[in-house]
């Protein structure tokens, strides 16, 4: 069980002096940008165990203060990593404190964030959250990405951090300009593979901490397909607060997959902000050992005639714990809204736990809005049917678990990523009988 003392987050070390050290030598525009975010960060309350959202994820699970802040990225001339890069028009490789950029796309601009700040769009309003603000102030690994109208472009970002006891703060600001089409695959990995069984002595094996704050601006008639693949090793803690805003007729398709990490807390917020905008948010997570996977989604409808569909499917085994919290918000006047939210959880053994907490905040009345959640083990009648056809019990379970995730895997367009997702699911089942 994970019921730990509800101690708060220790964020005292993120002070003005730390910010000054981090940003020493940066241009004035960058400094003022960081300073504005730091002001917001300082004004926002520290998440506490009494907040409904953080009740299951107390600060003790995320001992950020135990890590030294990583140095800002330096460019390296490294060639792109092997996996998939030939399928992509551009690749950003971040390897610990260095990065390399490979961009063959004519309609895609990629800049280190410090060089791009003058061109940045105004921030996303619902990004006013404690860790998002922290990430905006203290980012160590930042990029600005702009996709211009033209042929669809594909960008792969490999975030790979060493298990050296440091805190890395990745940040993407992505602008998909009107009528542009961007596919973005982000793969998060630790450079060292851990085991899946994690000791209860959290501090002793803490090897890597990550706090991320990405923001996405999807222009009119533009499309963003984004896949985030969390393959952290077992000694990683990760908090990421991402937000997107989608203009009229724009479309955002998100798939978030979580397999790795010791404690992970992800927030994905999407505002379908212009008439005709649509968002499709999908999630896939599989926790084992004593993993803790907490995810929160926000589907915000600030305009009429907007759509958001969400499907998050997870599985927990061993002593792991998953939490899903979903919120649909429809602003006053947001009529003819179509919002859907579904969370399903497979609890594969006693001792594993999945909490599902959907919520609605609706200020309008002319809308179609539904949400639901279902949590349980595999269907014994399905298992019996497969066994009656000669398929051994363990193989039948594996087949059914793989089938369960297929619905989400099918939403990814890249075949290589699909295969990786299937392999990751299979790996999680290896010792499952």
């Amino acid at each position, binding site marked *: 069980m994970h019921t730990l003392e509800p101690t708060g987050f220790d964020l005292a070390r993120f002070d003005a002096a730390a910010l000054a050290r981090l940003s020493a030598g940066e241009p004035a525009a960058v400094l003022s940008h960081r300073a504005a975010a730091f002001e917001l960060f300082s004004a926002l309350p520290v998440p506490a165990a009494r907040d409904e959202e953080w009740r299951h994820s107390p600060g003790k699970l995320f001992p950020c203060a135990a890590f030294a802040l990583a140095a800002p990225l330096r460019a390296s001339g490294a060639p792109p990593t092997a996996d998939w890069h030939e399928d992509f028009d551009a690749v950003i490789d971040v390897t610990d404190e260095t990065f390399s950029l490979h961009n063959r796309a004519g309609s895609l601009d990629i800049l280190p964030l410090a060089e791009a700040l003058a061109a940045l769009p105004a921030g996303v309003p619902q990004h006013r959250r404690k860790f998002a603000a922290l990430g905006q102030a203290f980012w160590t690994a930042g990029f600005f990405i702009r996709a211009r109208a033209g042929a669809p472009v594909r960008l792969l970002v490999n975030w790979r951090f060493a298990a050296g006891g440091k805190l890395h703060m990745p940040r993407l600001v992505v602008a998909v300009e009107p009528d542009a089409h961007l596919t973005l695959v982000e793969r998060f990995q630790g450079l060292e593979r851990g085991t899946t069984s994690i000791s209860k002595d959290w501090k002793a094996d803490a090897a890597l901490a990550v706090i991320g704050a990405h923001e996405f601006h999807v222009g009119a008639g533009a499309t963003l397909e984004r896949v985030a693949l969390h393959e952290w090793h077992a000694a990683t803690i990760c908090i990421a607060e991402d937000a997107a805003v989608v203009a009229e007729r724009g479309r955002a398709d998100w798939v978030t997959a979580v397999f790795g990490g010791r404690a992970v807390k992800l927030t994905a917020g999407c505002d379908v902000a212009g008439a005709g905008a649509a968002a499709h948010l999908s999630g896939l997570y599989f926790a084992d050992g004593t993993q803790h996977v907490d995810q929160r989604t926000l589907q915000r409808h600030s305009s009429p005639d907007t759509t958001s569909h969400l499907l998050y499917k997870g599985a927990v085994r061993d002593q792991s714990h998953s939490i899903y919290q979903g919120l649909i918000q429809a602003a006053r006047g947001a009529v003819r809204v179509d919002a859907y939210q579904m969370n399903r959880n497979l609890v594969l053994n006693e001792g594993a736990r999945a909490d599902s907490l959907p919520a609605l905040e609706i200020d309008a009345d002319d809308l179609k809005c539904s949400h639901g959640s279902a949590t349980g083990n595999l*269907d*014994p*009648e*399905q298992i*019996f*049917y*497969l*066994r*009656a*056809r*000669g*398929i*051994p*019990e363990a*193989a039948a379970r594996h*087949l*059914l678990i*793989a*089938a*369960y*995730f*297929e*619905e989400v895997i099918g939403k990814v367009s890249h075949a290589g990523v699909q295969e990786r997702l299937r392999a990751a699911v299979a790996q999680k089942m290896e010792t499952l009988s």
Partner: protein
Amino acid sequence: MSADVEFELRDLRVKNGAKQILQGVDLTLRRGETHALMGPNGSGKSTLANVIMGHPDYEVTGGDILFHGQSLLGLAPEERAKLGVFLAFQYPVAVPGVSVARFLKAAVEAVRGKSSGGAGGFLKGVREQMKFLEITEAFLDRGLNEGFSGGEKKRLEILQMLLLKPALGVLDETDSGLDIDALRIVAAGVNRLRGPDLTLLVITHYERLLKLIEPDHLHVLMNGRIAFSGGPDAVKQLELHGYDWIRDQVGAEVV
């Protein structure tokens, strides 16, 4: 035990939860024979079928199930399937996300081993049987029984039987939900396999199926016991008089 006995139930008693459903069932099927099993709703026919296949919810409280003289009781469902026992389900369950093609391949490989013809040879065999059962190839890519009509599910059950080539087939109301043409096609499918290598137990409510798959013997299950065993012609009396005919014959103590 006589040498050609393929399958035998001896005083089989079965419980599901607190309810004693089968109260001592005796049946003997010789190699290559077809036996029909009828009986009112709730009399325990599907229970019998599921217990033969090894459904974990049913508890055998007495008696035995013998296949080639060997007890099946300690065996898992998958082991029974590998020995050649096949159940065509009354209500086949849907398994979304597992395609029919993938499932058929997994089942055939599990029961019969990897085919020497490779994936191409396997698919060729599947297509041939599908054609015979008039199942369009589009079904191969669909989720197993997902959104299938009642009749489509039953055809798929028989397709599986044709591919798995069992030694003992138990058909639980395979005729229910089939239209007139489909009934004929499915019965022809079953008859394709009939011969000395297939022993059949056909559970049904209606004579029409037994006209197409002609049994050698007929049994009636009532209140968890075999209340009547006889020749196939008895089905005519049943159609005419209903189960009261049995009740009159065997007396009130069974019912």
